[in-house]
């Protein structure tokens, strides 16, 4: 299993906004346990999907030079359950980006229904945790994450 909870980007406006798609499927093993006979996507993984969507957006805004770490879940409200076969649209907007941190607001929709509202704060850790040493290489944006952005084609946008 790979820890990637979005399938692709369909919109990417550098430094501002991104929209990713996640298709939920019974091929995901955890859905057989969450819950037996009643598969629904765990809310925690929706937060992770939003963290990945917006983390890449925030990272790209600084040319992936910062180590962008999820520091705070400011808000996470869930309005609907998500089941196998559902297609989620995860939309993240940067509210604020500064040398040491960034905040985003996100919404998750399924068709036209509001599934979740998630606001997150990221820390650029090299600029924050004074005195702590981190590895030189950017371990946050590994090859798997970078592939997501490489695979982005503006023509994937629905209706274009």
């Amino acid at each position, binding site marked *: 299993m790979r820890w990637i909870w979005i399938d692709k980007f369909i919109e990417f406006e550098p430094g501002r906004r991104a929209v990713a798609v996640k298709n939920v499927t019974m091929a995901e093993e955890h859905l057989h346990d969450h819950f037996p006979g009643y598969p629904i996507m765990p809310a925690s993984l929706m937060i992770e999907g939003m963290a990945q969507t917006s983390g890449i957006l925030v990272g790209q805004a600084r040319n992936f030079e910062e180590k962008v770490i999820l520091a*705070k879940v*400011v808000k996470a409200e869930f309005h609907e359950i998500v089941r196998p076969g559902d297609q989620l649209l995860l939309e993240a907007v940067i509210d*604020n980006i500064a040398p*040491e*941190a960034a905040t985003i607001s996100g919404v998750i929709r399924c068709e036209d229904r509001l599934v979740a509202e998630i606001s997150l704060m990221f*820390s650029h850790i090299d600029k924050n945790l004074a005195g702590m040493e981190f590895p030189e290489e950017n371990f946050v944006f590994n090859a798997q994450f970078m592939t997501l952005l490489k695979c982005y084609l503006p023509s994937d946008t629905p209706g274009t």
Partner: protein
Amino acid sequence: MSMSHDEIFEKVKENLVDALSVDDDEVTDEATLMGDLGAESIDFLDIVFRLEKAFDIKIPREELFPAENLLNNAEYVSDGKLTSAGLAKLKESMPHVDFSGFESDPDINKISDLFTVRAIVNYIESKVITA
């Protein structure tokens, strides 16, 4: 922008309630951010971001919550307490803070108690009036 003390307090309160997920009535003048309202280090940045937006001001880092740099300086800290030079420096960099009480025992572990809701309101007040 001209705002009354009460207007500033209400707006600061609103932002602290959102940033720290605390109840309205917990945000009093004397409440300390860390001790009473449970703020952690990352929350301070969140609060700074929110206040900048809410009051349309720029808050230079190390102005509202300046203690960290000072504590890394050996000249200012001795035996877990601020030296008189350190205390003078801290007072100079935090004119919005009430030091009575802290002065008699400047234990560095008590520095976090200086960050009260009132200190933030005072700071914002100095900013919006001089702006």
